[in-house]
């Protein structure tokens, strides 16, 4: 047990050092704009169908559950606002981060791990280039930026899915569904969701590039890196979900000045 604890602390420390190195590289010798755009294009296009599908069904699930709960209060008119608010503030960023960790995180760490194991990264270093600048940084920034695009698509699809199920399941017509969205979802909710998305994307990019870059020991090592990326990002996302909720809660209380 103490050894496990030390291993965990070691891993976290190494990861933070790696992030520091990436940040340092980003500030001193940034990579070309074109390579970042290429990564954004790849990541976004890769996960667009999955995100859209998942977002649609998440909106549908939220609508069904909220309908069951609020019909007892006779507040069915608020259905659209409530389920959209829940999706924008909390469920949307969380689910998109989960899907990204499965899709992009696992893919990136497998790719980087294979590069590391087959000594392609050493070859880049031999050619006098900085592998962090050439390979890691575009992926890192690409994941962070494209997660916002994916969040937007997922949220729009979730509103659409919620609207459809509101029509089919709970008998709310689309105008009624949309009418209460602006009254309940304010700009703080959107800012909260975007802040969460930024934090999750940062976490995901750090873990998957670190795990891939530090993979050792052949094909088995790559497999280990992929599985540990998937597990670690999930755990990290849930923990940081709580942390960001706490931070935004406190910040909102300070800004609005109530209790």
């Amino acid at each position, binding site marked *: 047990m103490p050894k496990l604890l030390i291993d965990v602390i070691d891993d976290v420390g190494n990861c933070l050092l790696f992030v520091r190195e990436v940040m340092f590289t980003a500030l001193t010798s940034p990579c070309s704009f074109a390579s970042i755009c290429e990564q954004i294009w790849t990541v976004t296009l890769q996960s667009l169908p999955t995100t859209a599908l998942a977002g649609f069904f998440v909106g549908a*699930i939220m609508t*069904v559950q909220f309908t069951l709960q609020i019909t007892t209060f006779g507040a069915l008119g608020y259905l659209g606002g409530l389920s959209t608010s829940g999706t924008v503030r909390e469920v949307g960023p969380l689910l998109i981060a989960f899907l990204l960790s499965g*899709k992009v995180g696992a893919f990136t760490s497998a790719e980087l*791990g294979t590069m590391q194991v087959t000594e392609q990264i050493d070859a880049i270093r031999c050619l006098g280039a900085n592998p962090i600048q050439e390979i890691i940084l575009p992926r890192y920034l690409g994941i962070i930026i494209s997660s916002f695009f994916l969040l937007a698509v997922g949220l729009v699809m979730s509103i659409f899915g919620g609207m459809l199920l509101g029509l089919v399941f709970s008998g709310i017509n689309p105008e009624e569904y949309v009418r209460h969205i602006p009254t309940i979802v304010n700009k703080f909710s959107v800012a909260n969701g975007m802040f969460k998305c930024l934090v999750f994307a940062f976490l995901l990019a750090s873990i998957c590039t670190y795990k891939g870059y530090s993979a050792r020991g052949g094909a088995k090592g790559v497999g280990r890196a992929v*599985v540990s990326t998937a597990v670690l990002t999930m755990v990290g996302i849930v923990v940081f979900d709580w942390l960001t909720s706490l931070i935004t809660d406190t910040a909102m209380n300070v800004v609005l000045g109530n209790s």
Partner: protein
Amino acid sequence: MTATLSDFFVYSTRTFKALFQPPFRSKDTFQQLEFVTWQSLPVIVFCVSFAAMVTIMESSFHMKLMVQNDSLVPGFASLLILRELGVVVSSLLLTSRVGAGLAAEVGSMQVTEQVDALRMLGIDPIRFLVIPRLIACTVGGVILSLIANLVCLYCAMLISELKLGYSSGSFLTGMRAFVSYKDLVFAMIKGGCFGTVIPIVSCFFGLRCESGAEGVGKATTNSVVVASVAIIVMDFVLTYIFSHFY
């Protein structure tokens, strides 16, 4: 795409047929059950307890927005936890842990031709590899959804006592008013269904893995993505079906 789908249907019918044919490999099944349930338990308990705290805080926010006080928070939060949160979060975690592990394991067996060796010995790889994992994951999904729900409710009780100032008695009273025994049974059914999907999908991608390290990585990624999307879609279908029984 269509070829993959038809392959998948053939493979899953063969799996379900093999499910009822002896010999049953009970020793391997129990080993897999230990891997799925016992070894995933710490991660799932940890994550679910954090998810419970977030649920309490978010539902308190929405309650204050809607009806100006948060007296209904215990009921709503326990309803959300029992119906959706506990089982979905634990199955998504199970996908990334067990599903990715299974796809990597079966995929590397396929790449190193161990699956072909099994076939040459006259052993059906589906019956030998997939069935024990399928049974173990289904049973493990039911057990884990039960444990995850209990831990989640307990943490929600704790945090509502510490942060919102409800005593545990009033939390339980509020909970009893909103949820019933049925909800726990439905959650366990959901857990079993999600637990069935994970090994079927990951062994499917593992068995048709292309050669090389890249193939194993691709199989792992695909299995995690397809299983998570399948879980969300199935969750919607099951929620829709169960909504007629509440």
